[in-house]
């Protein structure tokens, strides 16, 4: 397919074509990682006379089974073949914390931009990342800024780095870029914040690329629009935006934007070869059959974020037996494969890595009963929007009423058949992610006293794999651990 560009008659008109995409965490996946098709698109656009800038919006370093192993290094490798001019750091880039992201930046042959991140250790942007970048395309200087929403820390707790006010940072960086000669300032972002619209209107930035494939699911946000705000709201899409800049015109920047589905491009054989290499390597690592299912399992987004789930029970039980904790609490958001498993299906390491692509590590905390109740309330507080915080438990039975207002939903909690004692200490096993206050579980972070954890805590996925391998056959069931009285059938 050819992109037709408006040829300019004026000598001082400067043209550039942007290719923008993001959200490609699973290499080789048609929906979430059609890199080979993207390569073909890029080749076609680059073959045109007009200068091309490939901006990658990120949200791709994780989670995926392969990233579970290499923390996104293979994504950088494939991007190195696609040669982006810049990559924006988005929330999923924090899947493996900021230090791993820094390591990726050193593997990348392109700048990774994070404009509103501050690492107190180096007193600037985390090592390897840049807070802004100026790229030269022919006679055009383009400044790139990229921000993450502060809410990112709720889902992806960072070890040290702080997210600073994006609006302010965009303003500051845009000014600095313009001072160094940027004629165009482009913003990459991933959360539909209203300030972007304002800054587009005020001319702080010239163009904005927003990627949020789950946008339609977010009910609470009002989506705004602006002619120079390009929104990718689906997976496997790329925006091709042709820009003409004419300082003499009243409307100095005109853009023509197209959203293209990647599936219309043939896969590029070189990149296919590269991604096949990953698949083979991944299969080598993940193909081992570890267990057989004796009952069906559903790990769809709704199934793991709205109620008790058989796979989640399997997971929490494995952790309980591994850590020998009194109770286990995990959030549904860590289960990611969205698959339906038939009875009798063979489970491989790969399945587990697909289900648990984040490198979640186990943590044990010695906490009071009342904190557990607070945590459960938090887990049940956003049932309506299917947030990832839904609590899955082992070692306790929770009765709740989803019709009650948030934070007042827990009706009854029993541990070992005994009602939970608010002042008694229990040994709770969870993920480091929740222990550090992720997904609104701040009560775990603010707990009193430390728990004896090791320097390198084991991965959840490894624990589950070991457990399933030992069992041989698994029979995951829903066992009334999380009972919603609102869903009780009459007579029950």
């Amino acid at each position, binding site marked *: 397919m050819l992109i037709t560009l408006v040829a300019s008659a004026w000598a001082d008109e400067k043209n550039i074509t942007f290719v923008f995409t993001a959200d490609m965490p699973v290499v080789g996946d048609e929906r979430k990682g059609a890199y080979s098709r993207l390569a073909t698109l890029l080749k076609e656009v680059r073959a045109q006379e007009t200068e091309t800038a490939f901006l990658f919006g990120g949200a791709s370093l994780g989670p995926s089974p392969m990233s579970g192993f290499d923390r996104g290094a293979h994504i950088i*490798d494939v991007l*190195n073949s696609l040669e982006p*001019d810049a990559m924006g750091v988005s929330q999923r880039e924090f899947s493996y914390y900021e230090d791993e992201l820094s390591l990726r930046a*050193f593997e990348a042959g392109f*700048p990774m931009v994070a404009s509103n991140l501050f690492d107190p250790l180096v007193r600037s942007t985390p090592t390897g990342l840049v807070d802004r970048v100026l*790229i030269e395309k022919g006679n055009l200087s383009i400044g790139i800024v990229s921000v993450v929403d502060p809410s990112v820390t709720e889902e992806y707790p960072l070890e040290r780095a702080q997210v600073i006010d994006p609006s302010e940072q965009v303003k500051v960086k845009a000014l600095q870029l313009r001072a160094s000669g940027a004629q165009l300032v482009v913003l990459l972002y991933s959360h539909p914040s209203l300030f972007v619209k304002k800054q587009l209107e005020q001319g702080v930035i010239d163009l904005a690329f927003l990627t949020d494939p789950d946008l339609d699911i977010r009910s609470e946000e009002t989506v705004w629009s602006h002619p120079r705000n390009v929104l990718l709201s689906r997976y496997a899409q790329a925006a091709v935006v042709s820009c003409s800049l004419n300082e003499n015109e009243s409307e100095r920047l005109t853009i023509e934007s197209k959203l293209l589905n990647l599936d219309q491009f043939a896969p590029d054989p070189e990149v296919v070869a590269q991604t096949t290499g990953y698949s083979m390597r991944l299969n*080598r690592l993940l193909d081992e059959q570890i267990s057989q299912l004796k009952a069906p399992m559903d790990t769809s987004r709704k199934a793991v974020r709205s109620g008790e789930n058989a796979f989640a029970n399997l997971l929490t039980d494995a952790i309980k037996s591994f850590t020998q904790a009194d109770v286990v609490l995990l959030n549904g958001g860590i289960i990611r494969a969205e698959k339906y498993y038939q009875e009798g299906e063979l489970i491989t390491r790969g399945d587990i890595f697909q289900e648990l692509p984040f490198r979640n590590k186990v943590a044990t905390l010695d906490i009071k009963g009342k904190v557990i109740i607070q945590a459960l309330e938090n887990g049940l507080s956003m049932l309506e929007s299917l947030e990832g915080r839904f609590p899955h438990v082992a070692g306790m039975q929770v009765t709740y009423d989803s019709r009650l207002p948030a934070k007042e939903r827990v009706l009854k909690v029993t541990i070992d058949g005994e009602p939970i004692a608010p002042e008694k200490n229990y040994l709770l096993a969870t993920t480091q992610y929740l222990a550090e206050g992720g997904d609104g579980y701040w009560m775990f972070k603010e707990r009193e006293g430390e728990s004896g954890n090791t320097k*390198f805590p084991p*991965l959840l996925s490894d624990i589950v794999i070991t457990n399933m391998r030992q069992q041989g056959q698994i029979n995951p069931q829903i066992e009334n651990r999380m009972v919603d009285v609102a869903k009780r059938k009459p007579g029950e």
Partner: protein
Amino acid sequence: MSNTKASATTKANASWLRGKRVPLSAVFLVSISTIIFLFFLVSMLAFFRLQSFSDILTELTEESVPSLAISGRIFGKVNQLTYLTEGLTRAQNEVVRRVLYTQLQEQVADLQVLAVDPNADPALLAHIQGLDLEISELNQLVKSRLETEATIQKTLDSVYQLYNAVTVSQSEQADEDQIIDNTNWKNVFADVVAMASRVATLDRLAEIRQTERRLEEQLGELSELILVLPESQQSAADTQLQALQELIITKTGLVAQKISHLRTKGRATGRGNFVRNFILDYAGMSEYRAYQLTEDTLAKSKRTTTLVKNQINILGTISVIAILILIVVIYVIQSRIVTRLEKLNDFVRDRLAGRDTRFAISGNDEISDIAKSFETFAHTIEEQKQILEDMSLSDGLTGVANRRAFDKRIDHDIQLAVRHQWPITVILFDVDHFKLYNDSYGHAVGDECLKELATAIKNVMRREQDFFARYGGEEFVCVLSDTDLAGAKTVSNTILEAIRNQAIPHIKSPISEHVTVSVGSVTARPSKDRITSPIELLKRADEALYEAKERGRNRQVNVQIE
């Protein structure tokens, strides 16, 4: 005599009433059994406690400790692997790469050996095989990165050589006009070389592409500038330009090499990080297992310590109880046997010494039996002794006291008279013409006669303190305490009368038809100043008797010593 007998019987009855019989054999049996049982109990307890302690220690030494040691060693190796991998990833030359790769292989081989150990984690072996492959692939990547780096350096060297050739050839052939003509060419050529060497230092793909585009422009400019050069130089310049293009922007040129280098470098770094994480993941599991194992071992040790403490307490308590029971047993043996044997011994000694000790051996067993038997024997012996004594002081024929008894008694009564200052009388009488009686009736009748006389006189002795004995033959004697001369006369007369009243026929008697006696008495008042001896008393009584006989027998003569 009969009193003593009665009291002995009462005592015996009382001891029988004292309680149920507990034989010493039973006491010994119970005591010894108790001691043996306690010894056995304490030994068995100690044995079983030690056994369970030894089981725990065995478990600790044979399972926990080796597992800990293995996991510690594995953890150590794994840590070494991480830094070796880092080193390999960052290797700046072939030698470093080769050395580190060899070391990594050795470590992996060591780990493989450890993984085969039964105490090692079974997942380790699978993990190591994966690791082995990953490391060898990392090595390949590093190798190809180093090769690309070398190629880039070589290409750059060629570019510089070419540049040198250009400058040298041009200055050699230079003349005035040509210098001006080829300055531009030379400057642009120099720009291209400078830009090319900059490419080698860039690490952003987009910048390399940007530079590539400029290089292409510059090379285009160079090919145009050739036309401006003097014709003599054009063909050489054309060759040089082509060589430069070849070195920089063809598919195998410097730019392509640099881009390939960046990709390989990124891939190698990524793989290095991957391998590191792969190792650390395993280290995590391994460390956590070791942590759990340590916790477990600590808990076990703690339990063992508590157990040992408890066992020490239990054994201590049991030993104390055993000692207490032993003390009780010893006390029982002491009180039931030893003390009573001592008492029995004292009792026997006392009885042998002739002291009439009270029978005080309590209980109902062999010792009390022995005591009772001894008591019975002693009692019998005393009775027999009494009988013997009685027998030696009485006259065998008449049953009244004999001369020895009289000898004993007279001393005693004299003493008594002295103490009480009362008179004492000794009466001596003799059967008249007893020889004739014997001759006429025979000795047997004579003896019968003496018996009758004795019995008659015994009845005359009305007071308890009056003593009467056969003095010898047909002669009898009486000792009368607190009896003065008048009393003596009365008693003498009573004796004469009693014999007469017997009226025992004596046909041969010259003085009477019946048996008669002659009586002589002496009455004395002995005092401390004048102690009358028995001999004296007897002598005077005998003289009185003689006188009575002289006067015609069957009469009495009573004298008094002043």
